[in-house]
């Protein structure tokens, strides 16, 4: 009879086959469970609606529009000169989430951002709050005219979505 000790590692064939079958079993279970988990992630049709085209020509200086993108509001504001000046004059390093205004806009006149408070997802109200920007009524976060968090529980500035100007009066969000 051959010994069931294989080699000089002291590992028996039985132990080896246990580890191998348990390993194969774990892989098989993982492969079977993954579809059950991944079905929770966004489906193809949800992902397909991931971009929105907006015509800006009707928006006057000092006006805002809210458009829906991925089920969320996106604020598009044609800022006044005073608002732009206010946003640019702030020393970015002093802010809770330091970011100069220039990093948040492609053209200073047009501020495009996701209208979802970075605290817990409410929609902030426009041209309100201590910094004349946006104010979230849920838990009292104040954003400035660049959508940067200035006061309150929100950890970061309002998110800037990926967008590009198709021409002077049209943008594509997403």
């Amino acid at each position: 009879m051959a010994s069931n000790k294989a080699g000089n590692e002291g590992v028996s064939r039985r132990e080896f086959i246990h580890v191998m079958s348990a390993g194969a079993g774990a892989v098989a279970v993982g492969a079977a469970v993954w579809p059950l988990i991944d079905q929770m992630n966004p489906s193809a049709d949800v992902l397909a609606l991931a971009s929105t085209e907006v015509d800006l020509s009707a928006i006057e200086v000092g006006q805002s529009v809210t458009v829906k993108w991925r089920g969320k509001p996106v604020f598009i504001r044609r800022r006044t000169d005073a608002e732009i000046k206010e946003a640019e004059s702030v020393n970015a390093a002093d802010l809770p989430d330091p970011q100069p205004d220039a990093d948040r806009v492609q053209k200073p006149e047009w501020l495009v951002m996701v209208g979802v408070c970075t605290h817990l997802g409410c929609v902030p109200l426009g041209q309100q709050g201590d910094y004349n920007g946006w104010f979230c009524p849920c838990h009292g976060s104040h954003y400035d005219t660049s959508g940067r968090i200035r006061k309150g529980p929100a950890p970061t500035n309002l998110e800037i979505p990926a967008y590009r100007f198709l021409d002077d009066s049209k943008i594509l969000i997403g």
Partner: protein
Amino acid sequence: MASAAFEPKNSAVKWFNDRLPILGLLHGTFVSYPAPKNLNYWWNFGSLAGIALMVQIITGIVLAMHYTPHTAMAFNSVEHIMRDVNYGWLLRSIHANGASMFFIVVYTHIFRGLYYGSYKAPREMLWILGVVIMLLMMATAFMGYVLPWGQMSFWGATVITNLFSAIPLVGDSIVTFLWGGFSVDNPTLNRFFSLHYLLPFVIVGVVILHIWALHIQGSNNPLGVDVKSKQDTVTFHPYYTAKDLLGLGVFFLVFSYFVFFNPDMLGHPDNYIPANPMVTPPHIVPEWYFLPFYAILRSVPDIGIPFTDIVFVKAKLAGVIAMFASILVLVVLPWLDKSSVRSAKFRPLTNGFFWILLADLVVLTIVGGKPAEGIWPVIGLIGTVYYFAHFLVITPIVSRIEKTKPLPESISSPVVK
């Protein structure tokens, strides 16, 4: 606890039970279970909780026959239930108010356990299973509140699911995963309906474990001393079935007041406005039973070194951690309380701090319903700090230094000499 053996007289029943002893199991649980003979009315709330769960499951199953879990139809299907479905108004009113009644009963049940030391050895597993049930109830209630798809449904779902975005690195992916999209939308409503239907049955399973664990060690009692002899107990039936039925009558009277005379008192008027993802209501509040936890969530500031810019944990993450910790701290309570005496009746300091804790939770409930401005966040923070201090500082210290009153020799000894 050994129950008296089940010996059916009817030969058919005996034949059945010899092959599947489920009747004996039920007999041992609801008839011959030897319960301490000094249980007071605070012990009604266990069976009341079981009945409240049954009411929710039964009304829920029939409501699901008329409800449509789709963003375009959910709100209208609830109105259809209220206006068109035979007795729909009654069923929905029972189900919606039943959630509140369930929480009242369960919170009372928990505080009874806290007061009389029911969490202490040898009932730790019983207590922990209870915490699991409470967590499952909260998840179920939260998802149920989303289903009518009103403004509070939508924004409550948004705020609560966003809690998970506080988790470092993977937070946003988790939130997308929970939503099935990039915001609370139809996939979210659909899965919440599925889970809201599933979880009550999971609760039933954990309740069975809870009762199993109860029957291994037997019920605690107002004196908190162990059952020493048969003289200390009475059979569950007829003594506690009768006592529980009286309590049940009172419970149904209170329940009926809300169902028939004030069905929307515990709800929020904004939930009769259909969900609108573009407009947040000015003041989002959860249902009353979540208010203390909501207050804890909102009141925690950035955690760091005071008077410097050094922040270890941002307020958002700290609030989320504090909120979950406020429930999970109950899991370790049996090991934080070092006293060998269970009942607060014999623990003068513990008795006092119990009532302060209760008052603290009332304060947190009030704070949770107020806007997060002015004095309220400060009161909320004080209440939160006290809540954790109660469990993590006061309980360990008091249970070591407290001079307890002398315990009776047994449950019977104060009356039988």
